């Protein structure tokens, strides 16, 4: 009897703790406004000039500041550390006036010297987001003309300059210099912050969670959050369950099936918006049968686009090399499924009767890419082309793109927009300087290169639009890709989250600045 009573007591107390300790605990937060975000990606490195990936972007944009910030849809560049700026007519000189209120987390003011120091460190380390400004910003051309004014003399005009600046974070030079070590402060900044952002790190549990806490006196007004937790939840279905149960406020890595399951769920808001993230199937324009442009065009017209879209879940078809919103040309004529046209191009190619065997690689385990490969296989059968589908692990695929000879005939590529400018996609995916790299393994056309360079150097928006219109037409004429789909960003959140506005750049790197909890 004694023992039974004891057991009953133990079970009862365990349940009591479970009720108090688990359900509702995550969102009760002891009266504090703590936003919980479920994401699949860890944040292993905090160095703003080294770290990459959307999770790192989330940490950096909330703990550090850039001169400007990006928000809205279509994305707009807004003042941040810089209260105002002026650009010289030739686009070579930018002068930023810093906000006098801007303070680092240790209370010291953010100065023009700190800006110069940070951009020079970025260029010196040549890691992280340095590629966005490498060859554009001259380390010796950054000048702090007074405490609050910083002048950039660019090496050449670069129209997307303001668009890349939200991702160039400003560090506190005193802190970095004090902890410089032998590696320019990399070891220190890997786990410590030296920023001016609204939040600091309260708790970092590698592989598990990162807790943010609002600094005592943020220099810029914002939402009512006291803190936030970036919880790593690898399984997307677990993210969905957490959101449904109210254990998380935002889930950022949901699948189309998860979004379907959350439809009409009370208290949950779904965000399904097109982002600047394209999926194309690159063709080997340099080596093998697809070096023949007519064969590429035959393939582009034989491809079953509807089949691709059906397998894609929440997505829309691409309408050319550039995503809508980034100067894509609505009048551009892109290939759509047309077997007659495909056969006509086949007849003009070196392989009028087909009988060619081509290879498509895709990432092992990515079901969607496998399905799209099957769509391609089925489409090519209709014009007498055989397709071999080879699943590969991603590092092997990356290594295979070093030369045209080792690149597969078909190579699938997701291209994520890093900054809100057509130059981002155009340069990464079609400029020949990127050959030997998975984003553009082989395609090269000197005229296209010239247009891309002209586009990034032209600061007159009207002239830029004309350049990119011509660029898109030329790329479509060359048919280096099967232009695939733009997947919609799938984010779901509780309806208690307020102040969220979708921006099609790095939207899963949640910006906490303006968010509030009811």
């Amino acid at each position, binding site marked *: 009897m004694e023992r039974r009573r004891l057991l009953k007591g133990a079970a009862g107390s365990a349940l009591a*703790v479970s009720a108090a300790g688990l359900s509702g605990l995550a969102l009760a937060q002891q009266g504090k406004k703590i936003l919980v975000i479920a994401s699949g990606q860890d944040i292993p*490195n905090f160095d703003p000039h080294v770290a990459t990936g959307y999770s790192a972007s989330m940490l950096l944009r909330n703990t550090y500041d850039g001169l400007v910030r990006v928000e809205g849809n279509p994305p707009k560049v807004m003042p941040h550390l810089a209260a105002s700026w002026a650009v010289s007519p030739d686009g070579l000189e930018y002068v930023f006036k810093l906000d006098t209120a801007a303070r680092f987390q240790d209370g010291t003011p953010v100065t023009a010297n700190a800006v110069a120091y940070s951009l020079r460190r970025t260029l010196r380390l040549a*890691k992280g987001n340095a590629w966005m400004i*490498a060859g554009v910003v001259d380390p010796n051309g950054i000048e702090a003309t007074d405490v609050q004014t910083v002048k950039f003399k660019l090496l050449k005009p670069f129209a997307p300059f303001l668009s890349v600046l939200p991702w160039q974070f400003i560090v506190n030079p005193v802190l970095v210099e004090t902890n410089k070590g032998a590696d320019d402060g990399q070891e220190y900044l*890997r786990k410590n912050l030296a920023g001016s952002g609204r939040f600091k790190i309260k708790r970092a549990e590698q592989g598990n969670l990162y807790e943010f806490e609002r600094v005592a006196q943020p220099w810029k007004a914002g939402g009512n959050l006291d803190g936030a937790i970036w919880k790593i939840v690898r*399984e997307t279905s677990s993210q969905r369950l957490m959101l449904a149960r109210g*254990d998380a406020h935002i889930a950022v890595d949901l699948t189309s099936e998860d979004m379907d399951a959350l439809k009409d769920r009370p208290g949950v808001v779904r965000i399904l918006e097109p982002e600047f993230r394209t999926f194309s199937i690159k063709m080997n324009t340099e080596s093998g049968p697809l070096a023949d442009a007519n064969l590429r065009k035959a393939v582009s017209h034989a491809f079953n686009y509807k089949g691709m879209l059906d397998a894609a879940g929440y997505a829309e078809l691409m309408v050319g090399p550039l995503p809508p919103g980034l100067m894509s040309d609505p009048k551009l004529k892109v290939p759509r499924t047309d077997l007659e046209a495909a056969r006509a191009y086949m007849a003009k190619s070196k392989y009028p009767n087909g009988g060619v065997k081509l290879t498509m690689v895709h990432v092992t385990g990515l079901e969607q890419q496998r399905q799209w490969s099957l769509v391609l296989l089925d489409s090519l059968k209709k014009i007498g082309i055989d397709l071999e589908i080879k699943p590969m*692990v991603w*590092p092997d695929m990356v290594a295979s793109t*070093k030369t045209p000879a080792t690149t597969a005939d078909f190579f699938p590529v997701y291209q994520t927009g890093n900054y809100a400018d057509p130059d981002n996609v155009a340069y990464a995916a079609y400029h020949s300087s990127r050959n030997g790299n998975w984003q553009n393994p082989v395609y090269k056309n000197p005229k296209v290169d010239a247009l891309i360079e002209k586009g990034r150097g032209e600061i007159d928006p009207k002239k830029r639009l004309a350049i990119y219109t011509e660029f898109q037409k030329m790329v479509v004429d060359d048919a280096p890709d099967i232009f695939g789909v733009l997947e919609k960003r799938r984010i779901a959140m509780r309806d208690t989250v307020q102040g969220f506005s979708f921006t099609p750049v790095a939207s899963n790197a949640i910006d906490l600045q303006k968010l509030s909890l009811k």
Partner: protein
Amino acid sequence: MFAYILRRVVLLVPVLLGLSMMVFAIGRLLPGDPVMLAAGPNASREEIAALSAEFGLDQPIPLQYWRYLTGLLQGDWGRSLQTRGPVLEDLKVYLPATLELVLAAMLIAVVAGILLGLLAAVRRNGWIDYLVRLASLASISMPRFFLGLILQLVFAMWLGWAALGGRFPLTLSPPPSVTGMLTLDSLIAGDMQALLLALQHLALPAIAMSLSPLATITRMMRASTMEVLQQDYVLTARALGIPPRKLLFKHVLRNALSSTLTVIGLYFGWLLGGTVLVETVFDWPGVGLYATKSILTQDFMPVMGVVLSIGTMFVVFNLVIDLLYGVINPKVQLR
């Protein structure tokens, strides 16, 4: 006995050396390019080359291996290309989490498996026996991740008794880290509420992990107990009037346990290396996920670290098992 232990520990050196050599060679001979991957899609050739030099990957492979070995002796387990951080730092976080999970799963499997096996053997062909056999078969057949999802749905979503995932409630700070195992750390800190919370998080993944070894141990135990029960000395003991419970636990159990111990030793290694699915489902930040991610990005220093540490633990655990043979059955002489 001491000489035996010493010899086994010394033998660990060539085992680990061979293991490290094999994994290092495989890692370096694979066709992928981890540096290009780690440098990111927008890196220039110069940046990729600089990163390669920073990590010493531009050196000949034997020299890289030699540097790795000499580094190990000085406590330097290398750095991860992806995170740029020291591997040892990562292992200190991930290994205790996995070890806690595996030990809890083994504890459930061993205790329940031995008892159920004994019970099934004693009640042979009774309803308990049939039930145990059916449950064992079902447990072995069911994939661990699927079981994990069902447990989550029933105990976390519907009943709300356990946590969906993770090791500790999100908004609470865990007890100060001493061992890295939250249950032990809670005990060390004397914080009983933390212990209960840690157990609530540990329960579901541990049960999901334990069912397959539990089923195997149950069946092994049932078979060996039945064999022992038919021995003449059991009949003699019964004839001498030794109480059934004493006979079962003092004589039958000891003799039936030796073959089951071997399985327990093997399962320990198997579980240590096979946590990834359960870790994924329950967001258990353990070494399985760490290793998988490193393998997929061909980040080989972490992989080396994981293989060597799991290899060492596996050998040590099996040494303990070997010693236990002697404890359970004094006739076994360890030389």
